[in-house]
């Protein structure tokens, strides 16, 4: 039977959720939506009914999150809870009914992206784990992994640097390019940790679209056939995170000038609810 990571929501029956829950994770601009656009028709050609969903698409909170983000005024806890609301709404009204009907649910990001982002903004891992613990364990998480050097040209040639994707709310640097670089590097480190913990299947996203698509198809075919899976790639073990005296993990942003990011002590009080 399908399981949740922690608490089961009231009225949610986990029996008979015969569909498959497939997560595509990865940092901003890595090509997740391109792959999903390819995967949906591919699955449908095989006679599989597909529902695709992604962050901030809920009827309840989706629009609100977008509006609030435009104002750039959300605190990190508020944003985490807003996304949790959006996720719960989609879980209850989209994902679970689709799984019950035997659909393949393809989701563009899941709780892991939300956790990685919030961790960089000083939110406790334990708090995040609890807040998102009602999430269902997916059948598989494909992590499209890319290094920052390969990511930057993609972003430059598609839509340019975005405020949130550059972590500008953390003020890593005045310059959008420098900020993007620092922020995404820190984010990738978090993803690598989560990849180990939650057993992501890692796909090298610096390869071409076709190559990534082929690997995803291979992986998904395995999941759908119900055969036991072998990891596609091993994740390199991430560097052990630094510990603060209080035992809390420090957000290690590779920032040139100290004092710019929430990781530095004197500034922290002003940035996060600590």
């Amino acid at each position, binding site marked *: 039977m399908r399981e949740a990571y922690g608490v089961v929501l009231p*009225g949610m029956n986990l029996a008979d959720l015969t569909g498959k829950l497939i997560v595509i994770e990865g940092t901003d601009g890595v090509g997740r939506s391109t792959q999903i656009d390819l995967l949906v028709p591919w699955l449908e050609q095989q006679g599989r009914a597909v529902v695709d969903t992604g962050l901030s698409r809920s009827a*309840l*909170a989706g629009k609100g999150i977008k509006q609030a983000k435009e*104002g750039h005024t959300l605190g990190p806890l*508020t944003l985490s809870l*807003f996304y949790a*609301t959006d996720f*719960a709404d989609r879980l*209850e009204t989209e994902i679970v009914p689709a799984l019950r009907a035997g659909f393949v649910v393809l989701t563009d990001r899941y709780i892991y992206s939300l956790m990685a982002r919030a961790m960089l903004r000083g*939110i406790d891992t334990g708090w995040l784990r609890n807040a998102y613990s009602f999430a269902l364990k997916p059948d598989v998480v494909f992590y499209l992994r890319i290094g920052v050097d390969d990511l930057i040209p993609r972003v430059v040639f598609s839509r340019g640097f975005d405020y949130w994707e550059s972590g500008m709310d953390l003020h890593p640097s005045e310059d959008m390019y420098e900020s993007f670089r620092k922020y995404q590097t820190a984010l990738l480190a978090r993803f690598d940790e989560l990849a180990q913990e939650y057993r992501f299947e890692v796909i090298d996203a610096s390869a071409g679209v076709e190559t990534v698509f082929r690997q995803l198809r291979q992986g998904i075919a395995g999941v759908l056939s119900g055969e036991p899976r072998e990891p596609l790639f091993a994740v390199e073990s991430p560097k052990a995170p630094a510990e603060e005296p209080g035992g809390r993990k420090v957000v290690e942003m590779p920032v040139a000038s100290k004092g710019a990011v929430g990781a530095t002590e004197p500034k922290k009080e002003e940035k996060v609810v600590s």
Partner: protein
Amino acid sequence: MKRYSEHRFPGKLFVVEGIDGSGKSTQLMLLHQWLKAEGYGVVFSEWNSSPLVRDITKRGKKKQMLSPATFSLIHATDFADRMERNIIPLLKAGAVVLCDRYIYTAFARDVVRGMDPKWVRELYSYAVKPTVMFYFRVPLEVAMKRLMNGRNGFKYYEAGMDLELSEDPEESFQMFQGRIIEEYDKMVPEFELTVVDATLPIEVEQAQMRQVVKSKLAQAKRLRVAP
């Protein structure tokens, strides 16, 4: 992230809790007036009032889109916004902050709606522990009598209609509020709530409240602004 009792701020935080019809909002308003007259920098913050989130909650309620989980999470979002942007900065500045409903409202309502008690408590674990939390305890019949006086009918979520306890809103409201009272009573020892007998005359309750608040304000600074 600091937890509940770990926060240290120069300001003071007083909260009122209790079911609808317990008279807590009236009492808080009277306390507010008094503190202002005494020259304290006092600010009032209401449940469900974040400008960013309030409209979404309102729409969700109107369209009956909220499940126990999303009901819980959208209120937690609203609270987090007020905590991060409003309550904590004010407490840092040394203000006296008054809250009409606080985390205990969520603990009562969400748990009655079937959410896991530990999960909800952890969700709000970053909230500042108030200086005093007044719980206005009132028998259900008394609260009902006050509420039926001058209003017609109950709203869907207010009456707990989503729990499908009864098809009749008034009956549903009673059953729902009865369960909320049970949760509040459990929280009295858990969180050391200060119980006020909410059947007493208004001025008697207010005198009790002022006495408690006064004893906590000994070192609080009075924020003076030039007239």
